[in-house]
């Protein structure tokens, strides 16, 4: 027998070790998103601040109807991490990023108070009391943030807090590119 075959167990162990080591960084809480590259699901839900007003995906396009790059941020007052995230969303909104809120399974009055007290980074907030749009989006926890291109197609999804680091690493380049694409049209 070739003596080199004696090294096979060592090689197998090294390969396994490398695989397991690389898996250390992966987050088991993170699901592969099924909606990347697909249009934002259809919905018709009331506005958080104006219960009479129904919101639907056409509201993402803006008043001129041209279409714009939009962040959709899933938030709720019961969500502790949203507190941490909120400050950064205010900063983003000040920089001119269009953010739409999806108030997820929340109490309307408490949510309105939250925006009054902490500042409102959202163009508007969709009030999804039953979490029906949440299910259509595959939301399984708040906060979650979706980046939509000017056509209303979901291009990126982040489960968990978006802060400066996450924005720089995951969103900024793509956001810039999508905005440039939208302007070029």
């Amino acid at each position, binding site marked *: 027998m070739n003596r080199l075959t004696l090294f096979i167990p060592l090689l197998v162990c090294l390969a396994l070790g490398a695989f397991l080591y690389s898996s250390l960084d992966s987050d*088991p*809480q993170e*699901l592969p998103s*099924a909606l990347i590259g697909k249009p934002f699901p259809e919905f018709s839900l009331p506005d958080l601040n104006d219960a009479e007003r129904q919101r639907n995906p056409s509201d993402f396009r803006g008043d001129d109807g041209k279409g714009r790059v939009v962040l959709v941020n899933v938030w709720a007052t019961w969500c502790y991490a949203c507190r941490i995230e909120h400050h950064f969303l205010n900063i983003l909104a000040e920089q001119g990023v269009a953010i739409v809120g999806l108030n997820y*399974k929340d109490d309307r009055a408490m949510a309105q108070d939250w925006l009054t007290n902490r500042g409102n980074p959202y163009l508007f907030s969709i009030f999804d009391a039953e979490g029906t749009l949440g*299910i259509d*989006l*595959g*939301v*399984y926890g708040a906060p979650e943030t979706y980046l939509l291109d000017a056509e209303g197609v979901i291009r990126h999804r982040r489960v968990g807090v978006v802060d400066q680091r996450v924005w720089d690493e995951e969103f900024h380049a793509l956001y810039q590119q999508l905005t440039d694409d939208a302007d070029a049209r």
Partner: protein
Amino acid sequence: MLAKRVSLRIFLRAAIACLALGTSSLFAGVDVVDFSDESLRPRYQQLVEELRCPKCQNQNLADSNSAISQDLRRQVQQLLEKGLSDDEIKAYLTSRYSDFILYRPDVNKNTWALWGAPVVLLLLGLFLLRRMSSKTSQPIVPTVTSNERDQERLRKLLGDDKGDVQQ
């Protein structure tokens, strides 16, 4: 003696009652689901046991009490009432939550390794087993290489300088 027996009986009854209460409190965690057609219930039960809670690590929808699992159980119930087939319900959920939600995902480019690995490992194991057994089944022919000096030492060690050890 009689008193002892009675107290034992009471003890056993109490123990059985405790066990019965214990199991009933387990079921209390599961919400009551009403179906228009009772034949949907076994399908519902099967689905919530086979679908995985997206928020929790390694719990199915049936076992999990998280808010998202409650919502998804309700969703499954509503879809069943709407008359969707099991496969349609699974497709509905995977289009939103990806294959993660299935405990038994279909074979596709992400899961072929998962499905294929046991078969490959089994075949590999059988192959190695065969090779090893074919080797050991060969008769072992000891190669005795001994010279005069070894024989001498052996005789001395055995303390027997008359007989011939090698026979």
